[in-house]
């Protein structure tokens, strides 16, 4: 034990001495770049984003152009992903869909992360009665029928697409908070936190500097799990009339539509599904890489 601790000190000494002080983030970034899979993941996500942004220029057909006489045809040189049963080009629909789904994924997850991490960290850290209270509130929120909540939101605020992100984020943050709280509760009692307290470090600094970075790993992982959930839940919300309206599509609605056609026109399901899978796979590898990179305990061996 002592040897390892000494080893660490030596390394940080040398770090201070030989190399210029690098910020934690630069360090992390370098570590990330060394992770092959994470880099591939990042590259793919950037690629996906670029396509999404450039969709109107890349697509060969307008996304709302139907061709009833054509109907659904399998992939060919004109229609890379085939067409759906209304004769719309699937490739166009998938890349337009990516705009919605990526936006939904990022924004809704961001909402849930911000609220969830703060709530969970505070609850776990403060503990005691406050923690009890906050956890009970969480339980209450979990149980409420969110369909009504969404419907009423729509009645009050109209069919705003930003409302969609808020609604989704507000559903997802609950589990995030619970997981973060769990981590914080267990981390709270770790020695270096006690040490920091005894040195008089303020609560907020402790939360910000010690707890959150340690929790970040789990948060990142849970983010990679939230994003697909949110993307697919969006399809359910469009059932309620919230979210994308036809003829605009999202991966969620494309997959939903594709299921009905699974046996007759399988390409209607395969392409959106595969696209979603690749994106999420990339996200996962990136997430794992980020986690490893940001791990404050990662040593340089």
């Amino acid at each position, binding site marked *: 034990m002592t040897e390892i601790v000494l080893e660490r000190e030596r390394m940080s000494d040398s770090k201070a001495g030989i190399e210029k002080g690098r910020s934690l983030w630069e360090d992390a970034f370098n570590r990330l770049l060394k992770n092959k899979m994470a880099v591939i993941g990042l590259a793919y996500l950037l690629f996906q984003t670029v396509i999404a942004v450039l969709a109107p220029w890349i697509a060969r057909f307008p996304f709302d152009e139907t061709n009833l006489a054509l109907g659904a045809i399998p992939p060919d040189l004109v229609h890379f992903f085939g067409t759906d049963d209304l004769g719309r080009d699937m490739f166009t629909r998938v890349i337009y869909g990516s705009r919605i789904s990526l936006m939904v994924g990022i924004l809704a997850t961001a909402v849930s992360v911000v609220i969830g991490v703060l709530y969970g960290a505070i609850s776990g850290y403060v503990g005691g009665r406050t923690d009890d209270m906050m956890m009970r509130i969480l339980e209450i929120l*979990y149980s*409420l029928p969110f369909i009504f909540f969404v419907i009423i939101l729509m009645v009050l605020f109209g069919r705003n697409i930003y409302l969609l992100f808020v609604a989704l984020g507000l559903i997802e943050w609950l589990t995030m908070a619970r*997981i973060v709280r*769990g981590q914080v509760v267990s981390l709270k009692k770790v020695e270096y936190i006690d040490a920091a307290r005894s040195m008089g470090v303020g609560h907020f600094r402790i939360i910000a500097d010690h707890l959150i970075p340690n929790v970040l790993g789990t948060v990142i992982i849970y983010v990679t*799990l939230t994003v697909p959930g949110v993307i697919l839940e969006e399809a359910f919300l469009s059932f309620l009339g919230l979210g994308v309206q036809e003829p605009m599509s999202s991966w969620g609605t494309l997959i939903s539509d594709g299921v009905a056609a699974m046996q007759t026109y399988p390409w209607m399901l395969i392409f959106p599904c595969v696209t979603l899978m690749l994106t999420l796979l990339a996200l996962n590898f990136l997430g794992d890489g980020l986690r490893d990179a940001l791990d404050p305990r990662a040593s340089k061996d």
Partner: protein
Amino acid sequence: MLKFILKRLLSVIPVLWVVATITFFLMRLAPGGPFSSEKQVPEEILRNLEAKYHMDEPLPMQYVRYLGQVAKGDLGPSFRYTSRTVNEIIAETFPVSAVVGLLGLLYALMIGVLSGIFAASKPNSLRDYLSMAFSMIGICLPSFVIGPMFMLIFAIKLEWFNVSGWNEPKDIVLPALTLGTMYAAYFARLTRAGILDVIKQDYIRTAHAKGLPEWLVMFRHTLKGGLLPTVSFLGPAAAAILTGSLVVESIFNIPGLGRFFVQSALNRDYTLVMGTVLFIALLIVVMNLLVDIAYAFLNPRISYD
């Protein structure tokens, strides 16, 4: 510990009360009601219907009346399934969801945790990537895609199972598998992450340094801490899985409780909504309690005294 458990069980009452109150008013804020239909019902008949269900009384009065009923354990008749009471419906359908859910959960835990361990045992190796890729499939393919696929493969092509229905024990299998696959993926990811977190801790290094064999380190030390995120997630997940899923129950035609959560809201079946909401609130409180107890067990530093 005992005091802790008792305190938590007592908190059920205020939680349920708040849930009931919010739900009661929330439901009635949404447009539409239990009696709206495409063929416009004449005014007078609508009024008669509302009188029958005390809906013509002022809202606070309806609330008090209903709450009094609920306190006695009577959740009232369903607005939609008029010959049944909500209590009956829940009593009949929960066991079905619970059985499917339990099987699904066991399957998910087994496959999920084991593959998480498998992946974490050699991070960033081929086995890691492959098992995470597989679990990714479970997350990307929602149950309304997997369900029909399983049905196609196992019930129609291979004919190992019935297409749908709830008549023999083997009817539990396909729904449970469909339900569990997504959760298995979650558990796999969370377990892997949790283990990787713990592995870097000092006490694990110590154990290794002491020369303990890999699997022993894993099971005696790593797993306890590593399961923490999975267990956190398990609380609400267990409540959700036990109360069933609308999608799985519709696809496989299972008389479970899951479909009512969505359908009763869409039908504005106020009493059934309330019943299902209260029921799941109860389950969530209980599950969270179990999870918190598990925390203490998994991480000796956590205590509730």
